[in-house]
């Protein structure tokens, strides 16, 4: 993923429908869009908006003058699509190549598949104490204010961030292992 850099050549390859570059584009930006949309939109709308953003960016690459500004172009497009999503504006029909490319990444498979679930369980089991795992479960459920979680478990917000950071490292390591050939 890192061997790509966002520049004029990258954008030109996207315009030329270069498959490898297109797949990188989708794999790189899809999770970032999901991260941005999480908490702002219902889960069922996230996938629609993700696809809509990537469709639009790929169709409007001529509007991008400098390749290095591609990330900001994607971000700006996402902000526009979110506004429209609130207003429930319909998007235009799409060509098949766009549907195939953007539809190749799947939030259900990549973020919510059995590998991710197994990695979550692995990370929970590797936490220092069952209590830490329990705090994480409370955070994951996301049913109450973070302040309330801190108060209930008698942890500071700083400690909560550190706990999440450690969990993330364990999760990432477990997820990588899950996906090793």
């Amino acid at each position, binding site marked *: 993923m890192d061997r790509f850099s966002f520049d004029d050549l990258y954008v030109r390859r996207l315009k030329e429908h270069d498959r490898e570059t297109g797949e990188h584009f989708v794999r790189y930006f899809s999770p970032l869009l999901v991260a941005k949309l*999480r908490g702002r939109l219902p889960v069922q709308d996230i996938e629609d908006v993700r696809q809509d953003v990537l469709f639009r960016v790929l169709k409007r690459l001529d509007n991008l003058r400098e390749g290095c500004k591609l990330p900001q172009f994607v971000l700006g497009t996402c902000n526009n699509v979110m506004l429209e999503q609130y207003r429930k504006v319909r998007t235009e029909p799409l060509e098949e190549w766009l549907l195939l490319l953007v539809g190749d990444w799947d939030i259900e498979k990549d973020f919510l598949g059995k590998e991710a*679930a197994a990695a979550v369980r692995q990370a929970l089991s590797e936490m220092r104490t069952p209590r830490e795992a*329990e705090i994480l479960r409370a955070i994951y459920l996301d049913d109450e204010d973070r302040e309330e979680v801190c108060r*209930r478990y*008698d942890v500071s917000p700083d400690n909560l961030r550190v706990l999440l*950071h450690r969990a*993330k490292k364990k*999760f990432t390591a477990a997820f990588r292992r899950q996906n090793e050939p």
Partner: protein
Amino acid sequence: MRHEDAVQDHAVERYLLGEMTEDQRTIFEEHYFDCHACAADVTDGTRMMMAGRRVATEDSRTGNVVPMRKRFWFAAAAAASLAFTLAGGSAGYLVAIRQQHVPTELVRVVGFETGVSRSGTPTTIPVLQPGDELRLDIEPSDDAVRYAADVSCGGKTQSTIDISREMAADAVTLRLGELPAGPCELVIQGVRKDGKRFRITVNPFTVGER
């Protein structure tokens, strides 16, 4: 935003935890869309949070949660419902204690009765031992989309269990694990649609010395 600032500020964690203001989020998003290291970190973290939510939700529905050390929740069998009926409680909330490793035998019934625990201290505060089981019958509430059971000892929460409406339709059993000896309480709360909680019952109990 510089990458060093993002790292030092725990920006990824704060972002994932929803601690940032809208302006802070916007600034961080402008950074991480263009920063490969932060992009990877945000990707991993978001994947963990979303998968974690699904795992935690599924566990709470299926009763697989292991919320306390060596403790297990599971939906009670029909025999448990019978136990409550025998205990004389048809409405509200009752707790029965069963000895460890005798899952079908009701040893004694603890006097947690409807109303008593809400408005005051029960006349008899039960003494429990680690390994005992608490069997709960949760009074249904129209306002609750689900329920939560908190066990706290000495004012410190030991465990919080998410209980779905479906689970709460039957009796639910909690096997006590490691708890500090001394006064504890079990609080059953209803959780409204907006996530806000309201108390249904508060039941004190004492954990005896081994």
